[in-house]
């Protein structure tokens, strides 16, 4: 890569870094392979005798009604919104946790305040009844 992008060669990972993430890459390949291999195998090996009933979508043994592409209710979206907010919270807790052993008690208090401030949002959702399924 160095000859094509000298900039990237200058910042390419060193060996230790590369080796650590190589394992991750291998895991990714194995995970994808584990999911895709049975699909490919059954597509190649399985005998094909399609019939009306076999082609119908399986829905816990019931006959499925209507289209799968239905309009969702707005309540799902509120759950997703809350999820995004608390996911962003995790983004800040993660470096705090990584540095935890070097931090003072003040840091613990500061993160406690941070979490409590966000818990306030959760309490608001709860009181508003957004979390109860109607």
């Amino acid at each position, binding site marked *: *890569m*160095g000859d094509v992008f*000298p*900039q*990237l*060669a*200058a*910042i*390419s*990972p060193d060996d230790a*870094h*590369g080796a650590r*993430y190589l394992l991750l*890459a291998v895991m990714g390949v194995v995970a994808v392979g584990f999911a895709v291999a049975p699909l490919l195998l059954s597509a190649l090996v399985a005998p094909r005798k399609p019939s009306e009933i076999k082609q119908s979508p399986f829905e816990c043994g019931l006959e499925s009604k209507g289209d799968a*592409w*239905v*309009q*969702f*209710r*707005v309540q*799902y*979206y*509120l759950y*997703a*919104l*809350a*999820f*995004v*907010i608390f*996911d*962003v*919270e*995790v*983004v*800040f807790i*993660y*470096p*705090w*946790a*990584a*540095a*935890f052993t070097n*931090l*003072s008690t*003040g*840091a613990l208090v*500061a*993160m406690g*305040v*941070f979490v409590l*401030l*966000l818990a*306030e*949002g959760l309490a*608001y*959702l709860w009181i*508003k*009844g*957004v979390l109860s399924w*109607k």
Partner: protein
Amino acid sequence: MIEGVAFYILSTVAVLGALLAVSRRNLVHGVFALLLFFAALSGLFVMLMADYVAAVQVLVYVGAVGILQLFAIMLTEHVTGDDLRRLGARGWFWGLMLAVALPVVLLLPPLLNGEPPVPPAAPQSTARQLGSQLMEHYVVPLEVLALLLTGALIGAVAVAHGPEKDPPGKDRPA
């Protein structure tokens, strides 16, 4: 050598994902292609030794933003794109211009300069350093950020939930 191979694989996946995301008529398929792009981008961040940014990319973009977009799309009426309506797609020309202009403007000056700038020694674990920095110098911004996030959540719920006028017990279609 191996990082070269990894770079080209990740870049190819990222470009293919991005192209699929804008070209699929079925919006749900488009979102899944976008998630593929986000994941490949996270791999590219790892190659730049920005492991914290890579983790954030997976946590927030692949995890949360993708889900949010899926839900948002499933809220709309026609998600499969087979109703033969088409949004006015005249923006493609300017999009293409921007896509060409951005790398030229960003990459050309350093490439023409010849000598690549010497990067500072990359830290072993960026997350650890970030955590110390966050707690030493940026505690007040962190708390303000918590307020901002809470405000965003409450505002979004207030907008999406609407005024509470629905009589209780009334069945709405799922």
